[in-house]
């Protein structure tokens, strides 16, 4: 049992951090498809930072700084230059994936993946079997709770949500939707940096090109699945982690009878089923309406 929980926390935590970044952006009215790029920037910057500074703290601060800057760039393009947020987000993702590869190459002179001498500190033996988890995993529930408080239990959160849902209402009480989006994206950038750091330096100490492997997009799916609610989306991300683990289990159990490729599709199938079911229970969330509004921005 412990092992299963550990596995799920491990694969779920990076996803959850990035999902929270997506949640805060979504609430502020930005469809952030740059999550994948921000996450890989966070992963790369952390590993490279550890090597260059020999300090995990400095490395993560660097990662957070770079991701926040990248988010500000996204904000500038979307908000100031009125670019289409979806295209711009995908562009940022491309920049992240390509830029980290190029950065590694120009810093280390080869395309080789990078191994760091150490990673994020582990909880340690006092926590028994859970000691192998990094402190970022342990911090995760607090961050989720913090985000929930921030978004659902403070006036700031209300104003942020108003900026996404009804910008005019937000403006008419004196909030500045543009600035709110900046804040939301910047916070999201920091969260993506932590998510990327946990992916690369949580239980691994390793950066490989493209190692986020679509997790940013899964996080985006979790945001929608979780109806942009910090806790709901967290559970959606956990759900993805669980079905991912079950997919592996299915390969180990049935791999000799059913083709592996088809078994690997099970998590995706489970996701479709889950979204369908939650839609039924919620009475059908409408994403298209928000998309129609996006088109006219």
């Amino acid at each position, binding site marked *: 049992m412990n092992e299963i929980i550990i596995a799920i926390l491990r694969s779920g935590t990076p996803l959850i951090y990035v999902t929270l970044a997506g949640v805060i952006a979504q609430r502020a009215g930005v469809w952030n498809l740059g999550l994948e790029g921000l996450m890989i920037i966070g992963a790369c910057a952390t590993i490279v930072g550890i090597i260059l500074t020999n300090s995990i703290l400095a490395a993560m601060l660097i990662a957070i700084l770079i991701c926040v800057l990248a988010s500000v760039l996204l904000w500038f393009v979307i908000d100031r230059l009125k670019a289409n947020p979806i295209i711009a987000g995908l562009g940022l993702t491309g920049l992240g994936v390509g830029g980290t590869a190029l950065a590694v190459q120009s810093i280390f002179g080869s395309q080789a993946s990078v191994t760091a001498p150490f990673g994020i500190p582990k909880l340690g033996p006092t926590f028994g079997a859970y000691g192998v988890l990094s402190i970022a995993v342990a911090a995760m529930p607090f961050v989720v709770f913090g985000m929930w408080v921030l978004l659902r239990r403070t006036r700031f959160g209300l104003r942020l949500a108003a900026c996404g849902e009804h910008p005019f209402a937000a403006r008419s009480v004196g909030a500045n939707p543009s600035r709110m989006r900046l804040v939301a994206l910047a916070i999201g950038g920091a969260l993506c940096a932590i998510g990327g750091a946990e992916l690369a330096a949580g*239980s691994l100490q390793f950066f*490989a090109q493209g190692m986020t492997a679509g997790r940013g997009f899964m996080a985006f799916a979790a945001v929608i699945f979780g109806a942009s609610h910090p806790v709901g989306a967290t559970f959606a991300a956990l759900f993805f982690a669980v079905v991912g683990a079950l997919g592996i289990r299915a*390969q180990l159990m049935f791999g000799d009878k059913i083709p592996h490729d088809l078994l690997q599709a099970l998590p995706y199938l489970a996701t479709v089923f889950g979204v369908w079911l939650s839609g039924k229970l919620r009475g059908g969330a409408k994403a298209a309406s928000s998309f129609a509004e996006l088109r006219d921005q």
Partner: protein
Amino acid sequence: SGGLVALVHTQAAGDNGPVDQMIAKLKQLSEEKGFEYRAVYAQDPATYETIYRTLGDAGAAIIISTFNEVAEPFKALAPSYPGTKWIQLFADPFEPAIPNVVTVSYDYYLGCYLSGVFAAKMTTTGKTGFIGGVSIPPLNADFNAFKAGVHSIKPDASVIAAFAGSFQDPAKGQEIATQMYNDGIDYIQTDAAATDGGIIAAANEKEGRMVSCLAPGQYALGPKSLISIVGLDFGVSLYNEATKAVGPEWKGGTHEHTGLGTGVIDFIPSPVFAEQGPAELNARAKEALVEVEKARAGILDGSIKVPFNTTL
């Protein structure tokens, strides 16, 4: 001598293994022989032809590429660029042969067979595993050979395969390996390029977990767990072939078969592990290696036939 030598690699660099080895060797060679080189990553099979054609048009002296998927584009284009020397690593022989193409095949699966033999001797739980990047035919063949190797020693041992779905997803590799180790599997053979990094990390988490990978560059990642590799020194192979090709007596239209015992493919115990690994495992490894030696000899003298089977 000058000219352009291009390596078109169809797997991403950064695997601490074959691709990185090839690029390093190509660089070395270009410094030694004074030609310009390009390492082009061709991720997408739909683009292979275009890339080769562009290289041909650019007057490349030598084009080196990898894996079977490039065979068709080679066949289509090599005749149009007779001045260019084409080398396909990891290939079936062309029929009919094309005069300016050299193909090289590797019996990598035989190394996996030896790893299977070794695994069977090393496992105490009777459970072994194999983690691949994507379930494509050559990897399937490797798994089947590994399994055959295990069963040649312990017919009732279990051999489980799983695939990460990507060659660049170490986190997924770690997740799969962790589940395998938790299931009691104590020996995993990898075949997943950069994904290996995560598998090694999983092995490092507990004493007694063994993992066998594919390149010497990985030794340092698991000094106490990475017990061996099924080495395929693409770099050396590339170096040899390219050196021949820039020389005057290059002969095209040939196929080179690289098997065990050529120095390119082999099952190699990790020297780092021999130094730092648990003494108990190292002691048993000594015995196991005797069995591996026997199997190797058997393969070389033909008394052991390892089937090449590309379906799971």
